[in-house]
């Protein structure tokens, strides 16, 4: 008789239940009847946040494959924030965009389930399962506006490439299982460490395959091709959701696999990751400069941010891991805020995401323009915001680990990226408005979400020590 411990899965179960309830409510809703479906989603997310806080420092595990160490719980909280922001913004835009609200919230919650399972998984097969749960839900969300040609194209491209990437990941898992006889990260770590001097060539292939699979989900160069199209074609809310949630979950899985089970092989994968990280930062920035669509520009910026995160992963030290966590928190709040504003300014027929559409925004929507400017400054890494501390933290981790050149490349591309963030700011504040229709005004709920997000960005930027402490505590207990 085995005893079962369900502790570690409680946050996940909260979100699953919320997703199922939303789905049932949507099914039994009468035609045209309104239901507070977003509220149901919020309840589930709050439950997940509360249980994550209660599990702090407990190191609970369930079924031997799901772990609730502080690293995972920290990221759970980030993911819950991502989910809450998405729900708050969607509450405002769902009717306008004619999104099927019930299906949207249910898929978003199921995607979050996949993400949370991915950060909590301590077994490669469970991680694959989580990856698929997350990815399939996000493919659906990308194409959720079925009548939009762009969205359908984006979803199809994302699905095809994502399926290939999943196959790579699974192939890597299969090779590791073939050589070590296990899919558990702990067990693989022990066996790989014992043969680190003369590694089995199949393990090297497995490392390569896993690297490809994760690099794809992180949208690292040269596996980034899907992301500009997918980010541009999806509704702006979904773009915000996947550029933060999917990235956070993928980076977490990447970190856990490569810095625990495959850490003994660091001499083999570090050079490859060096090149990937450098290429990601440079290409994301340089191509981003040329874009005229803000969504596409932020897609490339998101690629570049993935590169900075890889810097933290490459540093590999405790500082590096803590910097990843802090960076993910800062980046999630900032990027969701920026995409939230883009979503609110769009309309059903047009996304209004061209650079010219933002001309003179300060005159028509001063509050939104100010918020947008602050989010963009944070993405660019200006001092009073979260982005500055996050970048400083990651670069100092890289320098501490001896990656001087990579830190210099990162710093330079960060400087270049400031150009395209500031271009939007200049457009909003210093250009006269074109004779364009003013988008629909914003009401309470979404603005509250944006305000919370901004509060988070400023808090992390001005008083980061508490969160940095938590991030350090998160990585101290594991790996």
């Amino acid at each position: 008789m085995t005893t079962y411990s369900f502790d570690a899965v409680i946050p996940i179960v909260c979100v699953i239940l919320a997703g199922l309830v939303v789905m049932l409510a949507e099914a039994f809703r009468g035609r045209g009847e309104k239901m507070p479906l977003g509220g149901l989603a919020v309840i589930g997310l709050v439950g997940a946040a509360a249980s994550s806080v209660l599990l702090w420092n407990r190191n609970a595990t369930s079924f031997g494959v799901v772990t609730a160490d502080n690293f995972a719980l920290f990221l759970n909280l980030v993911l819950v924030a991502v989910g809450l922001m998405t729900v708050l913004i969607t509450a405002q835009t769902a009717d306008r965009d004619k999104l099927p609200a019930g299906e949207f919230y249910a898929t978003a919650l199921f995607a979050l389930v996949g993400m949370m399972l991915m950060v909590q998984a301590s077994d490669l097969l469970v991680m694959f399962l989580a990856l698929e749960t997350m990815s399939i839900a996000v493919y659906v969300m990308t194409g959720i506006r079925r009548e939009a040609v762009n969205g359908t194209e984006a979803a199809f491209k994302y699905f095809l490439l994502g399926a290939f990437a999943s196959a790579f990941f699974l192939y890597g898992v299969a090779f590791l299982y073939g050589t070590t006889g296990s899919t558990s990260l702990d067990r693989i770590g022990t066996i790989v460490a014992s043969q680190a001097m003369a590694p089995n060539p199949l393990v090297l292939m497995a490392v390569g395959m896993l690297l490809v699979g994760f690099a794809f989900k992180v949208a690292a160069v040269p596996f980034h091709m899907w992301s500009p199209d997918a980010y541009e074609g999806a509704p702006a809310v979904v773009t915000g959701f996947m550029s933060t949630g999917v990235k956070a979950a993928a980076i977490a899985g990447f970190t856990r696999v490569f810095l625990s089970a495959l850490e003994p092989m660091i001499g083999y994968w570090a050079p490859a990751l060096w090149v990937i990280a450098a290429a990601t930062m440079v290409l994301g920035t340089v191509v981003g400069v040329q874009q005229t669509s803000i969504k596409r520009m932020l897609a490339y910026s998101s690629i570049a941010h993935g590169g900075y995160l890889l810097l933290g992963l490459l540093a590999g030290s405790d500082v590096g891991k803590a910097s990843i966590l802090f960076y993910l928190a800062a980046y999630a709040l900032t990027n969701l805020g920026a995409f939230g504003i883009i979503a609110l300014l769009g309309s059903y027929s047009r996304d209004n995401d061209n650079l010219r559409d933002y001309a003179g925004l300060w005159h028509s929507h001063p509050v939104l323009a100010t918020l947008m400017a602050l989010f963009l400054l944070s993405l660019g890494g200006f001092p009073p915001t979260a982005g500055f501390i996050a970048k400083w933290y990651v670069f100092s981790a890289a320098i501490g680990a001896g990656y001087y050149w990579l830190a210099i490349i990162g710093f330079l591309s960060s400087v270049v990226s400031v150009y395209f963030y500031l271009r939007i700011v200049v457009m909003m504040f210093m250009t006269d408005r074109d004779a364009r229709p003013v988008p629909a005004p914003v009401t309470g709920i979404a603005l509250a979400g944006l305000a919370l997000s901004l509060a988070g960005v400023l808090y992390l930027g001005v008083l980061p020590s508490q969160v940095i402490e938590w991030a350090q505590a998160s990585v101290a207990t594991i790996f």
Partner: protein
Amino acid sequence: MVALGAVVGLGGLVISGLVGPSNPTPEKEAAYECGMPPVGDARERQSVKFYLIAMIFLLFDIEVAFLYPWAMAMRDLGWPGLLQITLFFAILVVGYAYIWRKGVLDWGPESDPDYKHAPRPGPAVIKRYRYGTRH
């Protein structure tokens, strides 16, 4: 082992290419070669309901694939096993209720609430619908 696999795989291709008789006919050269001349176009319009049914079938197929092994090991798994399979089942039932209410299982035009008020299509529309616009 890898070399052996490569030899078997590539060897088969090379030897059949060298030794096998080559006697092409139009039927054999067809893209989908099954020995029969193809009848009509493969790109025919199908009702989306077929795809939905296929997806639902997959769902319930997988459900049964789990239920049989559980039934075989029911005594060993005991109450926790029963609990798990019940939870699994409950989640699928939610999906089932969803597709039922959404009308995936309703076939025929009467099930569409908009149908009664919709204008009847004339013969030309029906013909176009049935044969596609290209013909």
